[in-house]
């Protein structure tokens, strides 16, 4: 009897995984398929014929293209700033021992807990108060804030596995503390740092909630453009835009990973030996 319960539990968890996978993949598959629909109107799934008309539409629409360009520029700058700030904060947190360490860590991660809508609205008021009305600057500020917790978190996770004796060994071998950081700590934490950068890029590309509050007529991101098009001019260009968003995110993550990430020559994964 006990055995049957165990077996059925195993079956249930397998079924669970399949259901989750279906729910994850199916909507995306539908959206991707529909973006190739040849029909002029929004018809039933699956499309009877396929064409690239919505992609042509997308690439000839200045509104979408401006959104895409802003999104890419924003995501790149956000990734650079957020990673730099996150890595510095994580290193400081990792080295600091004393009262308030926990509180400080929670504070750095707080944007994860505060609803994005609240952050967006609060930032809108804040920027208005200090007299910043440029859309791009506001978006950048917002995106840095929402991506910062990820870069801090992943870098911290990378630093935790690095034993203090490694730095001490480097120092006993004649390296200054700075040298030891660049020779030992940084390369070993790199996996975590790159993971943070990838998260930052993906979240910046994807965000709607915060961006909605901070856009201006000439600075808006692709997701924001998609939301506003959905309200005014709903057609399958949105599906094509969604696919483009996915492609750009995916490609840039890949590039990031290949250039500064998985340096196969130097090592593999996070070092925990």
């Amino acid at each position: 009897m006990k055995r049957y319960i165990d077996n059925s539990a195993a079956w249930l968890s397998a079924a669970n995984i399949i259901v989750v996978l279906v729910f994850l993949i199916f909507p995306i598959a539908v959206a991707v398929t529909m973006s190739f629909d040849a029909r002029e109107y929004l018809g039933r799934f699956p499309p009877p014929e396929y064409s690239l008309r919505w992609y042509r539409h997308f690439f000839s629409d200045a509104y979408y293209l401006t959104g895409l360009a802003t999104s890419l520029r924003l995501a790149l700058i956000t990734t650079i700033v957020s990673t730099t700030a996150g890595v510095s904060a994580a290193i400081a947190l990792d080295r600091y021992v004393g009262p308030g360490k926990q509180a400080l860590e929670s504070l750095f991660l707080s944007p994860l807990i505060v609803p994005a809508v609240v952050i967006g609205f609060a930032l809108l008021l804040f920027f208005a108060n200090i007299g910043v009305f440029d859309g791009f600057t506001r978006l950048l500020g917002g995106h840095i804030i929402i991506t910062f917790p990820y870069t801090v978190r992943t870098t911290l996770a990378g630093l935790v596995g690095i034993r203090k004796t490694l730095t001490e060994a480097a120092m006993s071998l004649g390296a200054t503390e700075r040298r030891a950081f660049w020779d030992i700590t940084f390369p070993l934490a790199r996996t975590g740092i790159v993971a943070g950068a990838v998260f930052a890029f993906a979240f910046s590309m994807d965000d709607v909630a915060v961006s909605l509050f901070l856009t201006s007529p000439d600075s808006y991101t692709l997701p924001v453009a998609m939301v506003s098009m959905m309200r005014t001019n709903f057609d399958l260009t949105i599906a094509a835009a969604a696919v483009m968003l996915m492609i750009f995110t995916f490609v840039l993550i890949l590039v990031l990973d290949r250039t500064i990430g998985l340096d196969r020559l130097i090592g593999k994964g996070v070092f925990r030996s």
Partner: protein
Amino acid sequence: MSVLELSHVTKRYGAFVAVENVSFTVEKGQILSLLGPSGCGKTTTLRLIAGFENANEGAVMFSGVDMKGRRPYERNVGLLFQDYALFPHMTVVENVAYGLKHRNFEKARIPDRVAEMLSLVRLKGFEDRRPSQLSGGQQQRVALARALATNPEVVLLDEPLSALDAKLRQELRFELKAILSAVNATTIVVTHDQEEAMSLGDSVIVMSAGKIMQQGAPTDIYANPKTRFVAEFIGRSNWFTGQLARSAKGMAELNANGGIRMFVNIPDSSPGDGAFDVCVRPERIRIGAANASSGDSPVNEMRGTIRDVAHLGADLHLVVEIAGGQLLAVTEKYFGQALEQSGQEVSITFLPGDCIVVPSGS
């Protein structure tokens, strides 16, 4: 002039005194063992010498130069960490070359020096391996090569053998000693393991609660511990506690608890009367009645019952219960004789010269 000298060094963490008034010197090529239980201050002493900590009082001097305020990279020490601390993202060669690069070793000679060190620790052919691809013993040899490559003034070994299994430990102990003497390294070994301390060290310092309890050659410390702590920490020991009364020249009689009486040798300088603890090492106790031919020097003889016999290869560890229920540890060599049986009644003997007298409660 001594290569290393600690002079009245004290280190406090808040109210806690980790190292208190510690002084010692180490000469060129000498190996000194710092031995003590965890928390005795031996690791702090090592960190003070390496420069990871700064002393509150006293001085750490390298060849007469006060190291006060000098960072680790401004001192020339070679440190072998307990966990080896090999850089996991570097190869064996890169690990060994690391110190040479940062200690301004002539660049063109680095490859030669690395090769020389790797042949010293017998790791030729492992140049391009990563630490994760090496066994524990090999990792330790890389760490040793890395520490010795820069010709450090002082080599510090932190529990060098404790991470290895017992068999490997014996092999490496011998090898470690050979390597250290080959480069004539001035070395400090920090360990909680008395075997490690005594086998590696030319001289041993026993520490407890931040203070030096005793310093001497391994044999001297084993044979003449000055306190009960040292006697108990080094080797196994049986204890008798009681009042000592001087009876003849160099001789006293102990009236121990449980009605046991025995003769002990004491030096003339010792006060001779009062409360003392007497230690008898397990290997000094013999099973069997006293020889008639022992002459006029008295022999301590007791009756007892064997409670346990453990055969540990070359050694037999026996537990003998004597009057008052006291259990004594007795060690015999095994050379094929018939083993004593548990429950067997025996006589045990030891000589007054086998007794080590220390002040009571020390």
